[in-house]
């Protein structure tokens, strides 16, 4: 998902930078703008919502949502197919449809490298990271760091920065892309549309917990893939086939490309001509807009943050029944990640071929008329296709697809941010919180974050020139590499200790800010009006900068760790990869804090049991929300190892799954080689 942020704005100097735009001033895009107002479309959309809500309600009865484990981790009972589907659906948001298609239209298939890189990273997740997280017995990632390093400052830093990144990057990008689509296709008031969507999402997130999310994600994956296939089919038919795409793309130039105001600016040909290397995944390291070292390593690093250390994704793996199910789910997600190139990037390019004057517009005044922003209109590529070439009924399906993508991603982010907030921040404020209180807090936080998202809409709309998304892209690619580096070292290098990790994180943050703030200040500019950011700061491509930042942080972490006292093995059993199978007793570094918390929690629960209200309304509410209080007291505190999943695997299944992973990697390598 955050990869999308990188692809939303391409700040390459040569190619035009197409930014996500706000078409809120736009009365009518073109003569054939179809709004969804016929019975077939409406029936499909209504049917979609009914299905989603019923799947949500059905899953409510399948798991016990009254415990922390049941609510936040679906009781650790998920099989591989909801895990895989949920990984895919949580990742693919409406931002992918709009962003991938738009950047594909603007600069070719290299943006698909973001997706295809994830094929390998998701295997890293399943094979290297999740075993450690599972044996550690943690629910959130800051909790893992707390156990691994001790102390509270690292986990606090990670919680805060993760929440910050969620609100400012994932949520706003998804909502914004959803809004673009809704306005293009429906013409609805953006507030009405977004608020309705958020409320429906919040409804099944709040009540059902992770189980509801994962089952609805499975349904939404089907919808997304089915609808996207349909659109891809139609668009290929329209353009004349794959070879026609290859042939026609290079001549998809707009008819108006001369400057309307030569005093102010001149339009050079490379701003509106499709790139020569449009059908190459791996491009020139110095002149390409997505240089191949960046595509291979930079995206891997940022992908490592997104897939292996981020709460949204890892939580789905932790909800699985066993390690084999996790691995199988990761493989399924990997195969599904092969599809976005064909379902979103190629249709985006087809859109540019079919509508070069709108999607490929270059003259600022014309672009403003077309989509409301001067920089470029490539991000209307996908909505334009939906509106123009899909027949009645299927347009409703595509809207359902976009809604599915939007709601699945948003719901996952809501749930995970509430997990983070509840388990890391709230338990620090009130260590004596009972399980029931934690679940209530989790639900209330989802509502808070929905309110924050709604308040974010005007900010997003105010970003007329798309500058907001420049900033969002920077935010993720300059802040994520240190976190990825610290997690990687924490899992694999026993010698790394708390001082090293903390100073590495702070150093990495400072380095990232050194690049991020000047870039915000100067702005990213566009092809016609390049930014005057000095070469020293902005000259290095952001993916290359990510690689540099990753290595600098790692060096810093290792240097500081080796200069300070190591953590003894007795504190590290089942927290590092080399000791993941160890069965010895572990002395938790944070056991004092845990013990205090547990004692306070037990006292609080006893007090509650004494004055338990037996009124009918309380009972009803409790039943609806999952029967919280009475069964909980016997269980230990949420992090207690009462159900420590073991990571042993049945050898037959282990070999099956490993073989499957190898096959998937082979397919991925073939695709990379084919399009390189």
């Amino acid at each position, binding site marked *: 998902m955050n990869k999308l942020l990188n692809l939303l704005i391409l700040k390459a100097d040569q190619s035009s930078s197409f930014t996500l735009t706000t078409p809120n001033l736009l009365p009518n895009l073109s003569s054939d703008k179809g709004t969804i107002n016929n019975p077939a479309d409406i029936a499909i959309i209504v049917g979609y919502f009914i299905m989603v809500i019923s799947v949500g309600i059905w899953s409510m009865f399948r798991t016990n949502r009254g415990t922390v484990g049941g609510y936040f981790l679906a009781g650790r009972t998920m099989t591989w197919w909801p895990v895989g589907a949920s990984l895919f659906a949580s990742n693919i948001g409406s931002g992918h449809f709009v962003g991938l298609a738009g950047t594909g239209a603007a600069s070719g298939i290299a943006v698909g490298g973001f997706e295809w890189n994830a094929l390998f990273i998701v295997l890293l997740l399943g094979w290297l990271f999740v075993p450690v997280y599972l044996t550690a017995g943690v629910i959130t990632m800051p909790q893992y760091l707390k156990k691994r390093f001790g102390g509270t400052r690292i986990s606090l830093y990670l919680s805060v920065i993760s929440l910050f990144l969620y609100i400012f990057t994932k949520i706003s990008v998804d909502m914004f892309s959803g809004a673009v689509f809704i306005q293009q296709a429906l013409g609805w008031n953006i507030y009405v549309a977004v608020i309705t969507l958020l409320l429906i999402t919040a409804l099944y997130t709040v009540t059902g917990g992770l189980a509801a999310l994962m089952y609805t994600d499975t349904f939404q994956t089907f919808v997304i893939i089915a609808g996207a296939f349909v659109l891809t089919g139609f668009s290929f038919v329209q353009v004349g086939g794959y070879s026609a795409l*290859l042939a026609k793309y*290079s*001549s998809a130039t707009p008819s108006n490309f001369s400057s309307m105001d030569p005093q102010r600016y001149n339009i050079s040909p490379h701003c509106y001509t499709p790139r*020569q*290397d*449009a*059908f*190459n995944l*791996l*491009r*020139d*390291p110095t002149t390409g807009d997505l240089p*191949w070292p960046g595509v*291979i390593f930079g995206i891997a690093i940022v992908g490592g943050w997104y897939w292996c250390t981020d709460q949204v994704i890892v939580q789905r793996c932790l909800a699985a029944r066993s390690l084999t199910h996790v691995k199988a789910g990761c493989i399924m997600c990997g195969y599904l990640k092969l599809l976005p190139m064909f379902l979103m990037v190629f249709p985006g390019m087809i859109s540019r071929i079919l509508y070069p004057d709108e999607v490929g517009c270059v003259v600022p005044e014309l672009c403003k008329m077309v989509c409301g922003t001067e920089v470029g209109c490539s991000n209307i590529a996908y909505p334009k296709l939906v509106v123009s070439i899909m027949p009645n009924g299927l347009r409703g399906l595509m809207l359902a697809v976009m809604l599915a993508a939007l709601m699945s991603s948003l719901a996952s982010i809501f749930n995970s941010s509430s997990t983070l907030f509840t388990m890391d921040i709230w338990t620090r404020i009130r260590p004596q919180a009972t399980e029931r209180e934690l679940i209530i807090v989790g639900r209330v936080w989802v509502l808070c974050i929905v309110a924050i998202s709604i308040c974010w809409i005007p900010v997003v709309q105010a970003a007329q020139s798309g500058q907001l998304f420049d900033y969002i892209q920077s935010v993720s690619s300059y802040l994520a590499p240190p976190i990825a580096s610290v997690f990687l070292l924490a899992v694999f290098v026993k010698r790394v200790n708390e001082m090293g990790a903390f100073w590495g994180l702070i150093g990495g943050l400072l380095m990232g800010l050194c690049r991020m703030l000047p870039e915000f200040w100067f702005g990213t500019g566009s092809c016609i009006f390049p930014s005057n950011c000095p070469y020293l700061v902005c000259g290095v491509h952001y993916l290359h900068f990510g690689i540099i930042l990753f290595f600098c942080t790692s060096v810093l972490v290792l240097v500081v760790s080796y200069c300070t006292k190591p953590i003894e093995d007795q504190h590290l059993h089942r927290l590092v990869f080399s000791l993941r199978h160890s069965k010895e007793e572990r002395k938790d570094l944070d056991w004092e804090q845990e013990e205090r918390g547990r004692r306070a929690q037990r006292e609080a629960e006893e007090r509650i049991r004494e004055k338990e209200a037996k009124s009918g309304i309380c009972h009803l509410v409790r039943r609806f929300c999952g029967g919280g209080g009475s069964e909980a007291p016997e269980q230990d505190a949420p992090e207690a190892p009462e159900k420590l999943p073991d990571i042993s695997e049945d050898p037959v299944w282990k070999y099956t799954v490993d073989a499957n992973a*190898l096959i998937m*990697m*082979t397919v991925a*390598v*073939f*695709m*990379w*080689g*084919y*399009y*390189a």
Partner: protein
Amino acid sequence: MGKLCAVTSCLLLTVSAAAAQTAQPQIERLLPQWLTGIIAVSAFLFLVFVTLLVKKAWCEKPSRKTAVESESDRENEFVVTNGNTYETNLDTIRRKSTVESARENEFENTYETTLEMTGRKSTVESTGENEFGNTYETTLEMVRSKEDPNAFDNLAFGSADDKVTSM
């Protein structure tokens, strides 16, 4: 991975150098696309093969020692059948026996454990002073002997001693 990078970067550089001069619509490829795909796959499978070989070579060295010892264990194996006579003072014999025998109830002190991994000598100096009702079996395959009173199972994952005492 490195090989793939090298191949593709060479390809790309030469090709883009060639295309840089002319205004061709697309970069000309030296090899057809499916061929680059096949080359990449072969390079990848080769790397996987090499990795497997290295892993096998690495893991074989420490495990060779344990393999030899467990073989000598199995040579000393013999099974107690009748249950009437038991041996005490097993100093050096290591055995692996599973309890299947029909043992009468009069032998309250049946005491068998089985050896799973290598390493320990069982020196049992057991005399006839064992208490009543102490039946203690540990088996690898969790086979229980049902006849004895006060029988309880112990699942021993590590090495366990072989001790058999007689009444």
